[in-house]
């Protein structure tokens, strides 16, 4: 579905990502992991065409950089970690913007659009918030509203940039369960940037481990997130620490 070839991103003299290649296939959930500054977000930003890069990104065989913004949006959806809200748009208004790429002219708002919007609101459990101002939502509700937006957008590939970074455990679980269900249907795939390695392990089918802008390892989650690999990248015994943390619970 997605093929990234020799992707390099430079910010001035700083090389944030260097010569990165990987691919994502249907039904895969690729977890992009690595320590702070390893280039995780940079890579997903490049794929969603938010930062300039060299190298190629192909989506179903087409070079993504040649796509119109609306075509890109129909194929690739993005859920960011932060939303800075200034105005009290209703949840419905936010979600309906997910259908922007499908609108033809100024007058179109077909039945298909309202169905998708209703469905997205229903799946995310935001139906009762439909008319509520997004200024009044909690962090988890807000993230669900934007998740509903990206569901309404109906992309084939969903990119998540630390979607649950500031959320309580309950909401983290909600969001990840929702995405896990979403990926089951049709020709879909997910790439997400995560900090939490246990979440990566639990939900990811594949992983891409980065360090200082280069790929350390990629492949199936179990093959990538090995004790040795993590030890090299994080310079500590991640496995041992995780296990000792969990051991506290076994009273």
């Amino acid at each position: 579905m997605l093929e990234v070839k020799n992707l390099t991103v430079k910010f001035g003299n700083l090389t944030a990502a260097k010569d990165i290649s990987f691919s994502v296939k249907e039904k895969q959930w690729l977890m992009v992991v690595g320590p702070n500054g390893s280039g995780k977000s940079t890579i997903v930003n490049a794929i969603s065409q938010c930062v300039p890069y060299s190298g190629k990104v192909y989506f179903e065989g087409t070079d993504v950089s040649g796509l119109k913004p609306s075509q890109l949006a129909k194929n690739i959806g993005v859920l960011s970690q932060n939303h800075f809200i200034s105005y009290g748009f209703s949840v419905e208004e936010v979600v309906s913007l997910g259908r922007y790429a499908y609108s033809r002219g100024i007058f179109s708002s077909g039945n298909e659009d309202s169905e998708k919007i209703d469905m997205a609101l229903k799946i995310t459990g935001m139906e009762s918030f439909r008319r509520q101002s997004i200024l009044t939502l909690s962090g988890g509700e807000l993230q669900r509203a934007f998740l509903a937006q990206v569901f309404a957008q109906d992309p084939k590939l969903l990119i998540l940039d630390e979607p649950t970074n500031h959320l309580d455990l309950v909401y983290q679980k909600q969001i990840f369960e929702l995405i896990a269900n979403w990926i089951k249907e049709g020709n879909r795939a997910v790439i997400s940037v995560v900090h939490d390695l246990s979440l990566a392990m639990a939900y990811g089918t594949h992983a891409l481990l980065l360090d200082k802008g280069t790929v350390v390892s990629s492949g199936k989650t179990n093959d990538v997130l090995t004790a040795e690999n993590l030890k090299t990248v994080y310079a500590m015994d991640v496995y041992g620490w995780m296990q000792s943390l969990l051991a506290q619970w076994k009273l």
Partner: protein
Amino acid sequence: MGKTTENIKFTEHLIFILSVIAVMVMCVCLGSVSIPLAETFTVIWNSIFGLPIPEGMSQSIILFVRLPRVLSVALTGASLSLCGCAMQGLLRNPLADGSTLGVSSGASLGAVIAIAFGITIPGFSQGGTMAVAMLSAFLSLIFILSVTYRLDSSLSTNTIILMGIIFTMFVNSIISLVTAIAGEKIKPIVFWTMGSLAGSTYLNVIALLASLIVFGTIILIHSRELNAFAIGEDNARHVGVNVKKVKMLILISVSALVGACVSVGGNIGFVGLVIPHMARMIVGPNHKRLLFASLYGGAIFLMLADLAARTIVSPLELPIGVVTSFIGSVTFVYIFYLTRKASK
């Protein structure tokens, strides 16, 4: 059911348009010189239907003083308010305005240069000022954007507003410089900077109307994109908005409208800031409704402000900017207080 709230309803349009017309009629009927209502209507009725108009002062005052002025004022108010609304959506900043971007100052600089160097278009005394003001607003925009692009290729809100402030200061210093070397022409420049819609002609009305039809329409058809920007620029990009193209179109339209308004009436503050703010409290943040509400609201507000300027100290006249700044700043503080209180 789900869609009914998005667009402004026909009845709402009707209410707004009727209010605009009601205020317009009131502003034509009231003025420094009192003319009986019946006479006012006779003059207007007869001129519309080509009937002979009774000769006299009231004819001159209504047809050539009040009507063109009220129309110019309404169009200026509508344009400035629409610009403010578009900038606030585009930059996701409720304090943004045509002036925040530096476009107003750029337009002022153009107008001052036109006055100082006597640039005029034969047959249209203010044409030179208007053309140079619009051009200067465009050039300011290109200047601000090219510098901003170098600093920050994503044209983020903070960079633009910061550049706008710096540019405004820069332009003000150049205006002072032009004024200083203008010699005897300092007088018209000082009068101009005080801003006046007095002496508006039908030519002004046509120029303002044309710019509002062309550039106002560009803004109005981008209401969905402005919604996306108002939620967040990144979000707009993610849902498929052509961010750079839309941003460019909106900024160009805003600078053209501001240039036209500034050259006709001088720098009139607060309209673009307060009216969209009030409109947002009434119709909500959705630009499909908000842009229209700001358009109508701006026209009504500025007509009333001008009526006050014309009549409060009759036979004297106040500069309209004094009235808008007074009403505007009081209203603004009130709104600010209410929103602060509400958020606690």
